[in-house]
């Protein structure tokens, strides 16, 4: 009798998988949409920031090089 009851309860638990939380922090908030948006936004920022910084410096260097004269004082004899 006890084993039947345990089987039925286990079966019922299998029907409610949405109650299981695999991640300790995911969905912990009252507003899951807000939490999801925060994860997405911070992922975008943390991924884009290094590229933006590097790209910005390279762009600035390129502009400096174009503005400036030749790096070598170069005279080519005919």
């Amino acid at each position: 009798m006890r084993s039947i009851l345990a089987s039925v309860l286990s079966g019922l638990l299998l029907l409610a998988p949405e109650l299981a939380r695999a991640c300790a922090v995911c969905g912990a908030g009252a507003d899951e949409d807000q939490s999801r948006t925060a994860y997405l936004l911070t992922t975008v920022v943390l991924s884009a920031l290094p590229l933006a910084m590097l790209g910005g410096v390279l762009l600035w260097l390129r502009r400096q090089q174009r503005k400036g004269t030749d790096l070598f004082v170069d005279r080519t004899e005919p």
Partner: protein
Amino acid sequence: MTPRRTAPLRVVANPRPTPLVPNAVLGMLIFIFTEAMLFAGLISAHTIARASSVVGWPPPGQPRLPFEETALNTAALLLSGVAVFAAQRLLLRNRPRAFQTLALGIALGAFFVGFQGVEWVGLIREGLTLTSSVHGAFFYLIVGIHALHAVGALAALGWAGLRLRRGLMPANSFAAVALFWYFVVGVWPVIYLRVYT
């Protein structure tokens, strides 16, 4: 025997090319990149903790951060950045004037750090501590790390000011120190708008 074609002779007058960016500035830029990622990580963690908070933000029983009072402090820091920029522009043209402008920038920066200290004392009295809540932990961690950077940058600006007064400050080294201060100034509005609101 056919004559060999040779490449035209290239005479290089200056074998050491002038770098596009002075070494001091490049080194500071690399350092600032790493610091920017440190702050980005901290602010991201704060954003996620805040969005995932079940009990609301700030948590019940915790004081609200002084947004309005800190606006004055923020204005002082921004003005300090402008003063240091002006000092950098004046460096090669008018050294005594550059020193005075730099001193004004340092004074405004010191006001910012001092005001932060007063604000912290008030918040601790109201019950916001490093261990009172996640809110308190993030606040003291992020604002504290920024304050450490501000103190370090002020010390560097003070050193630059002393050398500038004696006429021993190269423009490149000053640019590197000023760049660090611009970073401290530039990152603050992001912290202010993310943490204090």
